[in-house]
């Protein structure tokens, strides 16, 4: 399975009536997670998030693909 770049957020805990809702729920939760942190703490939190989520995904083909796309978007080759 390749890296998913189509919208993929879902909420299995509550009914979803509008397409944008699960993505907006995610984004709000992400920003809230950073609330009250210093920039250095936010940086550390982001690093730890990558580690947690990478372990959850596990499949190195997917992870390498994500690393490549992310790097290319920051520093076009």
């Amino acid at each position, binding site marked *: 399975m390749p890296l998913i770049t189509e919208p993929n957020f879902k909420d299995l805990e509550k*009914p979803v009536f509008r397409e944008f809702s699960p993505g907006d729920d995610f984004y709000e939760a992400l920003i809230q997670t950073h609330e009250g942190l210093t920039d250095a703490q936010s940086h550390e939190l982001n690093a730890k998030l990558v580690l947690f989520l990478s372990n959850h995904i596990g499949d190195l083909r997917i992870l390498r693909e994500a690393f490549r796309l992310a790097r290319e978007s920051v520093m076009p080759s």
Partner: protein
Amino acid sequence: MLSTYRYPKFEYRCPAEIGQRSSRRVVVVGAGPVGLATAVDLAQQGCDVLLLDDDNTVSVGSRGLCYAKRALEILDRLGAGQMVVDKGVSWNVGRTFNRNDEVYSFNLSPEPDHERPGMINLQQYYLEEFLLKRANALPNLEIRWQNKVVAVDAREADSTITVETADGNYMLDVEWLIVGDGARSGVRRLLGLDIEGRVFQDRFLIADVVMKADFPAERWFWFDPPFHPNQSVLLHREADNVWRIDFQLGWDADPEEEKKPEKVIPRIKAMLGEQHEFDLEWVSVYTFQCRRMKSFRHHRIFFVGDAAHQVSPFGARGANSGLQDSDNLAWKLKLVIDGHAPERLLESYNEERAYAADENIMNSTRSTDFITPKSAVSKLFRNSVLDLARQYRFARALVNSGRLSVPSFLYMSSLNTPDQEPFSGKMIPGAPMDDAPVSDQGQHGWLLRHVANQFIVLLYADREPPADALITDIKACRIRGIGLTPIVIAANATVAAACTDSIKVLIDLKSRFKERYDAEQGTAYLVRPDQHIAARWRKPTVDALRAALARATCN
């Protein structure tokens, strides 16, 4: 500044009650869009209504601008929808830019076969003018201009208000008081009722400009455009070649300074380029809050619109949600006034509309946080989303420049009867109804035009008409004076022709009803007077219908 609109001046007349105390059954305070809609709704249902307003004209400046599909459907029910659609600018497409690049676009009405478009842009003064036209045609609706409520005494069973005029004061004992006097609600303050929420530390400049431009009728939103760096800008088209431009200014901007034409005009020129000639029509600098009252009901006083709840402007959820308040309240109040339902029914106004207000506040707050990030990391994520959005669809879906007003699904309402059988699709109990093209005795029209102002049972006939006995039973069903009106939705002309003459039959012209309502032979929907689903069945019985009607009216 130029003027494309002449503000009417409504005549103040000295009320006969000056210096006296009399009584009124229904009084609405505030002749803005929501107060007017509520007054018209109640009056066209037969209530005698007195509408008080402290001013003597319509909204000054374009203010409320976008009217969503659901608001238009409500205005249709009030007899003002067509005027709004004819005068307004219809649009469905919104484009979002980051710097110079388009990163995302949306279409508000991806589904075909709805009568009304996703959104109409129209200056608020026109909407008020059209609602007033309707109001003035209703003999049982009296409007008093420059009549200001200056004192309120709220009791369990009624209230006493003191009204101030140029000729002196008078008092009214009011059984049902509806308060639609706006964000700075005078009545709310007189009662000392709290409204709590979040203040946003940001300022926005609104400029209405008149120009002939060939931009399409779309909503254009910029993050960080070269002509206004580090801030957002929004462009909308209104009627009469008026364009609304909204510039984010930041909290430190001086509102008085920013309103000056010599300050505003260069901003607009930087945006439009020198080739577009324009005139300034109206300028304002605003801040906003996202907040709501704990309860929209205080004894027999009901708060509607901005008086009850306020949102940021991103998403056009202010006037649109206010019109839905009035849509929700009017039929319930009418049933209670007529003795057809217990007062408890009115508690569901607060239950349903507070839920909707929370949803609107949530969505408009999220948009605001995306548009104006509050921390460095929040801005980093926002800019990363915008950057990835050029290439990746998942990021495009996260771009939030305003989630435009759509009605709430009231799926948690205590008035709903839960499904007993499986259904697919969105038309769950509590859903605002989807429209569909139908024909009525050869006349092409729309489903929502046929299902308003009363409790209706829609019976779907795929192959054969519904049983005569069921129709007879539905017609005979009464709960405390509330009846049910059956309407058959026939799959085609052959099935329609086989139905008895004593029932209204609509033909599902493009099978949209069947599709959107997951309808099969025999499927029935119970629909509320405000076009929301109350209950549905695969095999309806009159007992089940009666129980659902009782539940939807608290009987």
